[in-house]
């Protein structure tokens, strides 16, 4: 479920407009809401025209990295006659993120339509939707929708009689964070362990089954039908030049009204936390926020006046990530929070690269020891050094993902670490 902001449901709710309406899950209900009209438009367009519109719209990947979607599609080879694939990354596993799940749960056809349009744009004849292993209810809804769409001719041989064919396969993963990394996802999809591989080769050159492949996030694909139906200028009415459009914000932690909110990009983070979500409950003060899911750098309560665009969050020293702020109030021990985050990444490391396999676990152990009151001041130096060694030296960025919050928490909440080390006491109230 997601909620609009400022009650302007009709204008800003691009992704979440029909969430909470059970009929929107069915094909008939979806058609009543204007579903698959954008697909009809796309079928009359050349693949490169679709890519061009998405390029002009400035849509950026919603999986965390924010790479321009149209540009990514543009990397796909232009010739026909060779299998191309689209993978929809529905392995939403970033702690704090719960937006893709809601899109698939409430409006599966929106994503399916997005998949079909994107497949046409990149000349793919087959779409794999890779769903996180734990999303059983989601997969039931999604399967139902795919079956309905097949039966009605929206998927399969000669979509809507256009002569263009496209299949969709829903694939349930086995439950691994790293399967959300695009090459890890493809390894897993091909039947292997979810182990990322070195790029190059990039997926557009050599993806699943050795064929050119594009991997897009659920929310990215769900944004596509609106853009194709209404044009790039329509999409650019929201957000900034570099970060146009709207975005689902998964707000969690110590908030009066946590939840999913669809917001125009650029709303100040403080507004999201205090006005949209009502701030911390019981009159407590916000102490820290991880704005983009657990792999992004911490912000202090004083740093929340930043613009929530890709560039704005970067300027604030953090990252938009998956737009999943985890809010921690003054009762939170930030050392403990960081230890829990490190534990998560140690548990989810695929184990290929030494830095990630051994480093994330060592970091979690050091933090645990400090938490247990056995820390030493030199541990802080060791942690800083490990941050150095775990950055940019591995196949994928899982190791970097623990460094971002760790380094920022050491920089910004050093008092918490020192207090635990020197007095075996927490600075939380």
């Amino acid at each position: 479920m997601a909620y609009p902001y400022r009650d302007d449901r009709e204008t800003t709710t691009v992704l979440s407009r029909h969430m909470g309406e059970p009929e929107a899950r069915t094909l008939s209900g979806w058609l009543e809401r204007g579903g698959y009209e954008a697909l009809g438009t796309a079928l009359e367009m050349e693949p490169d025209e679709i890519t061009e519109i998405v390029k002009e719209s400035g849509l950026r990947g919603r999986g965390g990295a924010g790479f321009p979607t149209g540009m990514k599609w543009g990397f796909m080879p232009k010739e026909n006659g060779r299998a191309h694939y689209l993978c929809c990354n529905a392995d939403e596993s970033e702690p704090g993120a719960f937006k893709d799940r809601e899109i698939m749960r409430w409006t599966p056809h929106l994503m399916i339509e997005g998949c079909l349009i994107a497949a046409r744009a990149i000349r793919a004849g087959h779409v794999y939707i890779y769903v996180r292993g734990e999303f059983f209810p989601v997969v039931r809804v999604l399967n139902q929708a795919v079956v309905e769409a097949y039966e009605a001719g929206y998927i399969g041989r000669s979509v809507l009689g256009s002569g263009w064919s496209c299949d969709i396969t829903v694939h349930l993963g086995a439950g691994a964070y790293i399967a959300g990394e695009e090459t890890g996802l493809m390894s897993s999809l091909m039947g292997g362990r979810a182990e990322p591989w070195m790029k190059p080769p990039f997926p557009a050159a050599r993806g699943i089954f050795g064929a050119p492949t594009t991997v897009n996030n659920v929310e990215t694909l769900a944004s596509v039908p609106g853009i194709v139906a209404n044009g790039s200028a329509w999409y650019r009415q929201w957000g900034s030049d570099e970060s146009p459009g709207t975005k689902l914000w998964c707000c969690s932690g110590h908030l009066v009204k946590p939840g999913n909110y669809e917001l125009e990009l650029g709303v100040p983070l403080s507004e999201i936390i205090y006005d949209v979500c009502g701030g911390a409950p019981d009159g407590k003060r916000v102490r820290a926020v991880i704005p983009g899911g657990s792999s992004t750098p911490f912000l202090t309560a004083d740093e929340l006046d930043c613009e929530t665009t890709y560039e704005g969050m970067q300027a604030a020293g953090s990252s938009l990530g998956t737009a999943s702020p985890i809010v921690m109030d003054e009762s939170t021990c930030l050392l403990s929070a960081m230890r829990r985050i490190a534990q998560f990444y140690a548990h989810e490391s695929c184990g290929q690269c030494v830095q990630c396999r051994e480093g994330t676990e060592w970091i979690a152990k050091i933090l645990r020891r400090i938490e247990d009151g056995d820390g030493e001041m030199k541990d802080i130096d060791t942690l800083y050094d490990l941050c150095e060694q775990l950055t940019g030296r591995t196949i994928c960025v899982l190791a970097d993902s623990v460094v971002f919050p760790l380094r920022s928490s050491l920089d910004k909440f050093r008092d918490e670490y020192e207090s635990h080390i020197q007095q075996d006491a927490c600075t939380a109230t």
Partner: protein
Amino acid sequence: MYGNVKTAELVSLRIDGTEISVPSNTSVIEAAEAVGVLVPRYCYHPGIPSRPAQCRVCLVEIEGQPKLQPSCNISVQEGMVVHTASEEARSARRSVIELLLVNHPLDCPICDAAGQCMLQDYAFETRQLASRLNEEKLVMGRDRIAEDILYFADRCILCTRCVRFMREVAEDDALIVAQRGYRAYIDTFPGAVLDNPFRGNIVDVCPVGALVHEDFLFKARFWDLDQTASVCPSCSTGCNVTIDTVENQIVRLKPRHNSEVNSYWMCDHGRKHLIMSNRGLRPEAPLLRRDGKLVPTGWGEALTWVAERLREVSRGMAIVSPHAANESLFYFRTLLDRIGIAGGTFRVEQGEEAILPGFPKLQLRADRAPNASGAELHGFERFDGGAHSDPGGDAVAVLEDPLGELPDEWGREASFFLYVGNRLSPAARNAHAILPVTTFAEMEGTFTNFEGRVQRFHQALQPAGLARPAWLVLARLVSLLEDGGDGGVAAPTLASEAFQVMVRATPAMADLEWASVGLKGARLGSTEAAVPHAQAPAEGA
């Protein structure tokens, strides 16, 4: 090393200040090797095709690249400037070692790999000798991963060479990485058994002491081993091997790289068979039959006595072994010619075949002997019809065949029975003279493999007692028969001399030189093949 040299164009690059030109499909780690820089590596192995670049120890700095790059996975490019030992590269490498040692038990004093361990080597090379670790280590224990191979999970650095060897070279999916992250370990796939005939290679590719052959476990420290370049005698492939010995005992065989024969690999039959065949009773002094009894004697007396008796021989049969060296077979043939025995037969033990799919030339071949081709070359005939027939009242001369499965009374009626060998089976004890000779491991010499490749082996063991190489004994006998031993006909005293006499007298071997056979061997009749572009295609053909 350079893959397809002919089609790849050359590119020039600079590695640690040295200019080099290599084919464009060379990886940086291989190009560095060519200028004498050995970049540390764990997951990279030249014989395993995949390059996952996961151990991150081969990271190097390449000018113009924002991040360190894995040198195993990056191909050379024109004008590339590589620094393998820049401060950042060294720091990253040292960090990898520290991280690998976080959960490593540091049980080097009881580890079989100590002394030949790439974790030890790189710890010293990077000076990563003190850890900041202040936590308890993870303990995972050990496991039997195959009937004869143990897995020490705590020592494992998860380079996955073993898994990738099995998958990509042996094409067997029995071995997997189980679990993930710091809890990952190597295991067999649930329900699968690691019984591949080439599984032993996973122990060789293991850069640390995680995979260990149980029959070598705790047997020797690496630095106490004597290592000898040799050839595996257990089938006709003739894999190049190193024989490791301790105190005159063979403790293991390891494959020795030869791209023309066995690449980096060998089969498990070969690893075990030689050690097992080291058993049995050996004659350790010449034995002569006097008053119906075998009496030990010295070499001088024995050779004179045998030469005297051989002068009386006019007809008889000969049996040789395909385990005998080329030089021994040659001098045996020379002796037989001298005393007038023609022909001669040999038997080759047969066994099941096995092929290594990733390097199909390497096969465990049905012929379980190293030198059947050599025996044929010297005029002996393969004999497949069961046991050797009894010589009856004729003379019989035997070279190295153990006469193992024959009846006890075999050869008892022979007019003269000469046994030149290294086993004392019941039939061999019926000989009039037993001349003790060395096994191949106790001498220098050559074998000719299934495809006519002549390969040298070196002496790994001291001979048993007074045993001497058969060619030496037989050459002395020939010389005694020719001139009564006055020194008129010089017998060779070195294997190289015996080899040169043999190639001069054997037309099929005429191209060979002792030196050019070297450590890698040479094909018979290979002179045409050795000259590239010998024949340009005819115009208009």
